[in-house]
């Protein structure tokens, strides 16, 4: 008996920790093409900014693999799965047998087919090595264009700014973080970025990346016709599931690998978790790609339990995002930016702070908090637990919304109040 996990990031850790809660014996092999022990991917921006040292990037202690009885094959790429023979094949030609397999290969940056994309210093930003490469280029960088104003693009922009590089962010939508933020919240974030000195161009995109005679980036041409000089381009339009090899091996893939409520794929004994999946969305009940850290851990955990035979149901992921840019914290949960007739929106904005709660049938289904985000989790909990908020509706927008606003019985149940 053996467990094999492809990918060595948070979903893999969730699975390993769950497996070892039940099964302390069976060998686990983790295979990843990245050469590092598991690290906190979101921290690559802090690494580039010089705020976190490489030694502090580890997501788990250095003895994690040893303590969990895991053999880590790092720097090894898996090219195919043979679900009949129950083996995976590596790029070097090695064949590794499994009884239960987890695909946790995350996402890969989407780089649209545009002229100049093959030039030197056209970068993406999702791996530790990306941060290191950009660090090496820093002395040459005066102005960088970031394509895409989502979380990753903005984090990259902030990091470069901290290192003294002029940054222009180009976004096709009419605002930053358009998938999770509405116009008002987007404006607060955009103001913070612009006040710090980052240029933001919305409603436009890069048509072509321009290069010099050395094959290095020296500018971009925008769709609007405008041209900008720059020394590098970071493409941060989005991340797509890393599922091509799985698909070629017979795994059912839509945008991501389709998983059921046990995190199983269509192939026997093959599970998937994390950014590579198109798993259940708690609020909509549909399957969708939800590329966030907490969801990857939880899916990995559920997969891990089920791989041991301990049945656990995945009740669906809840989209949560937390980001702080130039001192402005922004958190979103659930349907933070959906327009629909059956939704009721409560909102309040004052100064640099914004609070929005989205309701459906007297239950919270979405939230955005900017500025004062303290105790945001109370609201997330209301979403998660589908609590009827009729009794606290008037207080949901209060900055000091708290347990005091909960019906007393509910509060006592939740806090386990002394009897």
């Amino acid at each position, binding site marked *: 008996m053996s467990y094999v996990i492809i990918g060595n990031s948070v979903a893999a850790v969730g699975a390993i920790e769950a497996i070892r809660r039940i099964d302390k014996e069976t060998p686990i092999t983790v295979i990843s093409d990245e050469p590092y022990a598991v690290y906190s991917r979101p921290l690559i921006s802090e690494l580039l900014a010089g705020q976190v040292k490489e030694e502090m990037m580890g997501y788990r202690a250095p003895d994690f693999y040893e303590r969990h009885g895991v053999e880590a094959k790092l720097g090894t790429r898996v090219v195919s799965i043979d679900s009949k023979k129950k083996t995976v094949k590596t790029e070097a030609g090695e064949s590794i047998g499994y009884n239960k397999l987890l695909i946790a290969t995350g996402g890969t940056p989407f780089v649209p087919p545009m002229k100049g994309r093959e030039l030197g210093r056209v970068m993406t930003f999702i791996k530790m090595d990306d941060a290191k490469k950009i660090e090496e280029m820093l002395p040459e960088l005066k102005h960088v264009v970031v394509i895409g104003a989502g979380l990753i693009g903005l984090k990259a922009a902030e990091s470069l700014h901290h290192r003294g590089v002029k940054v222009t962010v180009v976004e096709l939508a009419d605002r930053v973080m358009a998938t999770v933020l509405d116009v008002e919240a987007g404006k607060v974030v955009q103001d913070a970025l612009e006040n710090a000195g980052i240029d933001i161009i919305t409603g436009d995109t890069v048509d072509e990346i321009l290069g010099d005679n050395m094959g290095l980036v020296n500018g971009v041409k925008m769709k609007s016709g405008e041209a900008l000089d720059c020394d590098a381009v970071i493409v941060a339009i989005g991340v797509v599931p890393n599922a091509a090899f799985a698909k070629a091996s017979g795994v059912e893939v839509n945008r991501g690998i389709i998983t059921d409520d046990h995190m199983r794929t269509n192939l026997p004994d093959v599970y998937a978790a994390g950014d590579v999946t198109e798993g259940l969305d708690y609020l909509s009940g549909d399957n969708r790609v939800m590329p966030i850290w*907490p969801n990857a851990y939880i899916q990995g955990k559920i997969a891990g339990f089920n791989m041991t035979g301990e049945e656990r149901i995945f009740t669906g992921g809840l989209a*949560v995002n*937390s980001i702080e840019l130039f001192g402005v914290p922004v*958190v979103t949960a659930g349907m933070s930016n959906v327009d629909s007739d059956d939704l009721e929106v409560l909102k309040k904005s004052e100064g640099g702070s914004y609070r929005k709660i989205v309701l459906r049938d007297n239950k919270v289904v979405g939230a955005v908090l900017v500025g004062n985000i303290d105790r945001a989790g109370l609201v*997330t909990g209301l979403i998660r637990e589908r609590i009827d908020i009729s009794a606290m509706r008037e207080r949901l927008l209060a900055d000091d919304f*708290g347990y005091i606003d909960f019906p007393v019985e509910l509060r006592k149940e939740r*806090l386990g*109040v002394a009897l």
Partner: protein
Amino acid sequence: MKRVYTKEEACIGCRLCEVHCLTEHSRSKNIIKAHKKEFPRAISRVLVEELRPVSFAVQCRHCDEPVCVEACITGAITKDESGKVVHDEEKCVGCWTCVLVCPHGAPRRDLERRKVAKCDLCPDRETPACVEMCPNRALVYEER
């Protein structure tokens, strides 16, 4: 495991639990120095909520399946063998993901350090400071 529970009927909203929690988590552990001389100042990990005449103290519940541990992007929060949910200040980067997911609103933001602070059940003491120092025994530390 032993946890702290609040008796809201007995709480008078004096906030001494907050004062003693801050002191216990300061460098000097001296009540005056902790509040007046230490910078950055420690912050209390227990929060008193109040709407006269009701008041009660809330702190981390050391959940059985802690969502903060699952969500923390750096691995700074872990559940140890005793069941205690512990936070490693050195690893924390102040991303506030735990603040966003904790259903009890327990992790507090320490804005000066840009880190989260949460109840650690006072590792240097037999009984957490908030429980011991509450003048009205409105907090209890017990096994359930």
